[in-house]
């Protein structure tokens, strides 16, 4: 996210430091601190407080209501022995793997296409971003219809003459994840494309000229020179996609509700069902703690790269 701002940050800090040495420094600093109070309260109080609350209660045997009778890691042992949880982790891994790769590849390809200065770029950009501006619920429903065997793609292809054509992903446990994947990519690509486009536009034209002088082909220039140069952009995109994947909930609920069977269950749905349907809060807390840990594993290295490294440099 700080892809473009990085260079600007130190300058601004110096400037404001110079400004802060003016006489009313103390007053301004005090006001500035006061101005931050609501924000700090919200981000620390609410987010940290609630997260810690959830983690603490994941070590209890809470059933219908949260109670503080600690049972150690019992909920976690049970969680990792639950077939449904294991299945949803596996589903998330498959869905996540393909979703990550395809969104990056498609997003970058579209951005490269757009970078060629096509006519009507603004309109194109808006249309590609439209799916992202829709609610997951709408996306899920739209794709539920398109993939519906009775009047969706399968039906259209069959009515065009290819009667043996079979494409019914949402009712087939073997391929249901790919049905959801299509909808997910449809929704997510636009954002990644825009971020990639920003990265491509940030690359100096001289590099292209130099590559041309050296007789390097376009494809090779992209693969060997441009993409390595866009590493920070790729990392940011990766983090954004990954965080979205772990949270995936509405999309699956709207399309399949986790079915058929357990074939498209996701961790977030597992947590939700245990908290509201299963009357087993403790295990739901344990599952959501596992999700938080995963998010932290993804975020911390990124935060270190984006922010931590710069302080020393």
């Amino acid at each position, binding site marked *: *996210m700080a892809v*473009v701002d990085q260079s*600007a940050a130190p300058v*601004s800090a110096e*400037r*404001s430091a110079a*400004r802060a040495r003016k006489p009313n420094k103390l007053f*301004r600093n005090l*006001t*500035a*601190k006061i*101005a*931050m109070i*609501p*924000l700090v309260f919200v*981000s620390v109080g609410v*987010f940290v*407080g609630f997260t810690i609350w*959830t983690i603490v209660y994941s070590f209890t045997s809470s059933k219908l209501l*949260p109670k503080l009778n600690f049972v150690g890691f019992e909920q976690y042992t049970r969680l990792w022995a639950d077939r449904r949880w294991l299945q949803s982790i596996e589903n998330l891994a498959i869905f996540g793997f393909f979703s990550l790769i395809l969104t990056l590849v498609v997003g970058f390809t*579209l951005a490269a*296409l757009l970078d*060629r*200065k096509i*006519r*009507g770029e603004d309109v*194109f950009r808006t*249309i*590609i971003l*439209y*799916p992202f501006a*829709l*609610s*997951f*619920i*709408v996306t899920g429903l*739209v794709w539920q*219809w*398109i993939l519906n065997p*009775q*009047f969706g793609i399968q039906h*259209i292809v069959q*009515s*065009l003459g290819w009667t043996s054509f079979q494409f019914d992903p949402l009712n087939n446990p073997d391929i249901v994840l790919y049905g959801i994947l299509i909808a997910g990519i449809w929704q997510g690509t636009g954002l990644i494309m*825009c971020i990639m486009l920003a990265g491509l536009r940030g690359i100096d*034209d001289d590099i292209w000229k130099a590559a041309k002088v050296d007789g390097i082909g376009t494809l090779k220039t992209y693969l060997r020179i441009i993409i390595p140069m866009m590493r920070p952009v790729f990392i940011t995109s990766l*983090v*954004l996609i990954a*965080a979205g994947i*772990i949270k995936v909930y509405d999309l699956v609920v709207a399309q399949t509700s986790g079915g058929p069977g357990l074939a498209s269950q996701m961790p977030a749905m597992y*947590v*939700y069902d245990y*908290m509201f349907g299963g009357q087993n*809060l403790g295990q739901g807390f344990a599952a*959501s*703690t596992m999700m938080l840990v995963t998010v932290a594993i993804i*975020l911390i290295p990124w*935060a270190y790269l*984006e*922010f931590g490294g710069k302080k020393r440099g």
Partner: protein
Amino acid sequence: MARAVTTRRKTLTTLAAWGIALLIFFPILWMILTSFKTEQDAVLSPPVWFWFDWTTENYVTVMDRANYFRFFMNSVIIAIGSTALGLLIAIPAAWSMAFVPGAKTKDLLMWMLSTKMMPGVAVLVPIYLIFIKLKLLDTHFGLIIVIMLINLPIIIWMLYTYFKEIPGEILEAARMDGATLRSEILYVLLPMAIPGIASTVLLNIILAWNEAFWTITLTTVDAAPLTKFISSFSSPQGLFYAKLSAASTMAIAPILIMGWFSQKQLVRGLTFGAVK
């Protein structure tokens, strides 16, 4: 971008891009077309594309039957309310971060953004319990607060990047002329940041409008917005295919229209200011 691109090649890439755009827009287009069909035409085999008897009867039915207007108003109230409340907290904070940064400012910004990536289910129960205790379930106020909390990181981040582009000297000049802090922010900073604030508002209205996880969990009837309305038609099975299309089209129409007229700001907002 003075890269040499031949005209023929340019035409080809343009054609390819538009083909892709059509493919991407197709699901939305199909939904809109279906919403104007009769239920019989909607499931016709082979499908009819444009040459059917256009009808608005689905829209009439949906509005009559489902009390669509109330859901719509709830969406409006929640989207505008949460954005306004968010701005109220975010403007002072973003001012402070942009013009009086401390040693921890970057860390705090980073922290704010990472909360945006947190899975909502992880904090669902504590929020739910507080809602029960304070009788906030199914109220506009409760939803406004929760949705504001969820989108606050983005509001702050966007305002921060916009504020940082404003030279501090201008604010300083105002201060030298004896402006109080309040008028410095209200009459100098805010008018200069209007384009930035506008796109922040826009993006937040869209995000709040689409928020499904929390609205579905925390509302039943009174404060339920459009996302809840659509999700209540969980399984169409061909019976209400055209009507559901009409309902969904109405739910996304404001977004599509707003998006069209503000594409530039939208792109910038959605990419956290990375694309200008």
